[in-house]
């Protein structure tokens, strides 16, 4: 396998020159060598993708470039000049701007105020704002980035907020923009818009560094792509000369199946039935509006939708974590009594297992040892101790079994759960829920923040559960995941199931429109990746 390919393909100095050159960058955190002799050269006026699994060192590298960390050794050149970037203020002065994954905006300030924040000219705000308004207008026109400068941040869409972040960086004179996983929170349509903006930026001579784990985006938008694995830069190639399969192989270091291998579903009797469910969120706003559906044994039903359209509340109410306003959940022919703050216990007892959307906040107690988490939710079972006492030996035995079956690494059940990687934490939760032999498995975001290698494993386990005759409800914001796993897709928008689709025939474009609440007959077709059709 030719995994040690260096950056020979883009070695010759381009006409426009290098915007960023990193040479032999090293960074260690304790025993972890996060960046090992990293070389990276980013051509001015291009979009340069950086891909790699979680923990491959992408964020560390970008943090070094943006001045959050100082490299232990190595050289950074910006526009050919050797620089020691001490902090992010210095990085900005050198024309390097960053758009973080989680926006750094003040929600109840206007767009204009957010842009100016931290870059005021003087102690008085008025002159800064007037100057900024002019500058903002110019930037918006030049880069086709329309945002109402007087809109309040919390009133505008996530896509617009991201534009504000980009404008913030441009306002501060950024020539090179680093975007960290920018599409995680966007609809396919918004992602398209973002990519158009990035293309405009490139055409105007700006340089864009795009960190992502979505190979499809890399293929769609970047000019060059660098792949990182375990702290090393394993390859830099021209995007036009590579393929998603090759990039995945470079990232993981072995061949990966991007498409899940599964046989046709063989549905049996109805196991889970949701009838006219109405659920409100913590603020009392109705988020699930009269939702009904059924799942049969041996099938996977996927719920697609942009996050925040009621999926979370739907999952939480079915699994007994959130009170429902009205409606019933019927499991195996019997209605579930889910009210009260221990509804989740009754749902589990009835045979409903739950892998929550947010494993860190919900599915695990991160300060507990691994073995303590192996019984979370099932600690009252007689198997883990008679009477009031906890049978620690039995719990540890179960944990050891889980670790073995699901190949959790490190295989140390006494290790604190927060010290496991995202993928292994997810395996801990999955093992716990799957090994209790439930009838129905409800899974939210099964592979969020999980490495490609582990994704493959998790997907196979889910298919295995299905083939054992379990009913599986899958909620994910990763459309690819739903399309490859589910046997039926329900699309949720604004608390309502707006349609059902067959994953074998529906295109991403069609699903994307449904997810945006647009009726597919009347809507205009989008541009870019939403039109690419079925998965490669």
């Amino acid at each position, binding site marked *: 396998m030719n995994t040690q390919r260096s950056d020979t393909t883009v070695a010759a100095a381009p006409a426009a020159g290098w915007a960023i050159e990193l*040479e*032999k960058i090293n960074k*260690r*955190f*304790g*025993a972890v060598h996060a960046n090992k002799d990293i070389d990276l050269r980013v051509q001015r006026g291009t979009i340069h993708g950086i891909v790699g699994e979680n923990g491959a060192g992408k964020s560390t590298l970008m943090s070094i470039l943006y001045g959050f*960390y*100082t*490299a*232990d*050794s*190595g*050289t950074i050149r910006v526009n050919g000049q*050797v620089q*020691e970037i001490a902090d992010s203020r210095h990085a900005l002065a050198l024309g390097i701007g960053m758009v973080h994954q989680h926006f750094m905006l003040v929600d109840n300030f206007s767009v204009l105020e957010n842009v100016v924040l931290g870059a005021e000219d003087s102690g008085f705000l008025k002159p800064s704002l007037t100057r900024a308004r002019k500058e903002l207008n110019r930037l918006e026109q030049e880069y086709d980035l329309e945002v109402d400068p007087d809109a309040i941040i919390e009133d505008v869409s996530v896509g617009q907020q991201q534009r504000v972040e980009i404008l913030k960086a441009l306002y501060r004179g950024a020539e090179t923009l680093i975007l960290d996983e920018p599409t995680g929170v966007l609809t396919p349509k918004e992602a398209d818009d973002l990519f158009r903006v990035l293309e405009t930026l490139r055409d105007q001579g700006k340089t864009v560094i795009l960190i992502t784990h979505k190979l499809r985006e890399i293929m769609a938008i970047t000019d060059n792509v660098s792949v990182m694995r375990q702290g090393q830069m394993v390859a830099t190639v021209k995007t036009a000369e590579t393929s998603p399969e090759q990039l995945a192989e470079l990232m993981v270091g072995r061949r990966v199946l991007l498409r899940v291998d599964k046989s046709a579903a063989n549905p049996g009797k109805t196991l889970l039935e949701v009838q006219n469910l109405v659920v409100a969120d913590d603020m009392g706003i109705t988020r699930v509006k009269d939702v009904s559906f059924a799942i049969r044994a041996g099938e996977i039903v996927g719920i697609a939708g942009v996050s925040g359209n009621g999926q979370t509340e739907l999952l939480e109410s079915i*699994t*007994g*974590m959130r009170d429902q306003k009205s409606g019933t959940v019927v499991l195996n022919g019997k209605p579930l009594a889910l009210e*009260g*703050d*221990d*509804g*989740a*216990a*009754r*749902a*589990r007892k009835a045979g409903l297992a*739950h892998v*929550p959307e947010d494993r860190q*906040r*919900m*599915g*695990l*107690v*991160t*300060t*507990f040892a691994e073995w*303590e988490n192996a*019984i*979370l*939710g099932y*600690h*009252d079972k007689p198997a*883990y*101790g008679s009477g*009031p*006492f*906890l049978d*620690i030996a039995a719990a540890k035995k179960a944990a050891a079994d889980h670790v073995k079956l699901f190949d959790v690494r490190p295989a140390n059940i006494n290790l604190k759960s927060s010290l496991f990687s995202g993928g292994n934490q997810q395996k801990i939760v999955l093992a716990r829920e799957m090994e209790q032999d439930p009838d129905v498995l409800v899974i939210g975001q099964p592979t969020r923040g999980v490495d490609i290698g582990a994704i493959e494993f998790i997907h196979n386990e889910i298919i295995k559960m299905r083939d054992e005759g379990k009913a599986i409800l899958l909620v994910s914001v990763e459309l690819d995941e739903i399309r490859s796993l589910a046997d039926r897709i329900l699309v949720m928008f604004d608390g309502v199931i707006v349609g059902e689709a067959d994953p074998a025939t529906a295109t991403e474009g069609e699903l994307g429109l449904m997810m945006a609440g647009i009726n597919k007959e009347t809507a205009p077709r989008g541009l870019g990746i939403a039109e690419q059709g079925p998965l490669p």
Partner: protein
Amino acid sequence: MSARRPLPRWADIALLPAINLLMAFLVSGLVVLFVGENPLHAIQVIIYGAFGYGDGFGYTLYYATNFIFTGLAVAVAAHAGLFNIGGDGQAYVAGLGAIVVALALDQTHWLIAMPAAIIAAGAMGGFWAFVPGWLQAKRGSHVVITTIMFNFIAAALMVYMVNRVLKPATTMAPESATIAVDGRVPQLRQFLSFFGYSPVNLSIVVAIAALIGVYILIWHTKFGYAMRVLGANPTASRYAGISNSRMIMITMTISGALAGMVAINEVMGVQNRLVLDYVAGAGFVGIAVALMGRNHPIGIALAALLFGALYQGGQELQFVIPGITREMIVVIQALVILFTGAMEGLFRPSLERAFMLMGPEQKTEAIAVSTAKPES
């Protein structure tokens, strides 16, 4: 600027409290120096007073008994993520249960009266903590606020109960009738003359039992597991089907019952009657004890002993060195609480840095970092 790593366990539970304590003594020493006395002599007096002879050691143990109960009360609640600062009030109200049962049964035998009084005191202390727990679980009123308010209510209630209900018509002082000898908790000096005239009594056995019981409860029962899940992550506990509201109410009740055991020590073991303000701030010392003891029974036992020694040694100090007044003792005790409680984390960051430099593999790395020069 590298990522910080947590301290090794032994440093967290032993070294850090020791450093805090040392700092408290250093500053106290400066204060003693400032009023013109010799700090070394003062330390010597404190240590001798607390441990040097039977009477003194007995007093130390008697104070420690109270602090074990209130420290455990704080720790149990803390494991469930609740901050019970109402130990004072709970211990105070528990005295009602203790005195009523003790007076009713003081003609029988202490082996009957004491267990009954334990139940009654536990019930009263537990009730006094249950109400704030219920308010938090059902009404969302924070226990920090309600438990401290319940301290004031307890004080007012007890003044009324002692003066209007419990005070015999023949007495002028605000106190209840005296418990007959048969109903009192036996003193340790009845078995070991070593303890001289000190008030340490069989309540210390109850305290030791409580230490063991709390250890089993927290780490070896399903209830303790649920409690720790709630304390570490309330969302996860709801996910696990644990009823958070029920857990809060039960945990607060257990916590209050533990604080209530102070009444057994004070009312039945020392005063032999109910007097006003007999808790004397033990509930608040319990917070420092639990903090310093890292909410673990062994740590609490040691911390309680330390505070017991400070109380007793402090008393001794004002007798031996007249220049150090009662107020000075309070200052020293306050400094210890300040350094081991409120400013508990003061030295943590620097200690963590020191440890990163001391480990063998970290050391080479630290040297490499400080000697590396960017190539230019």
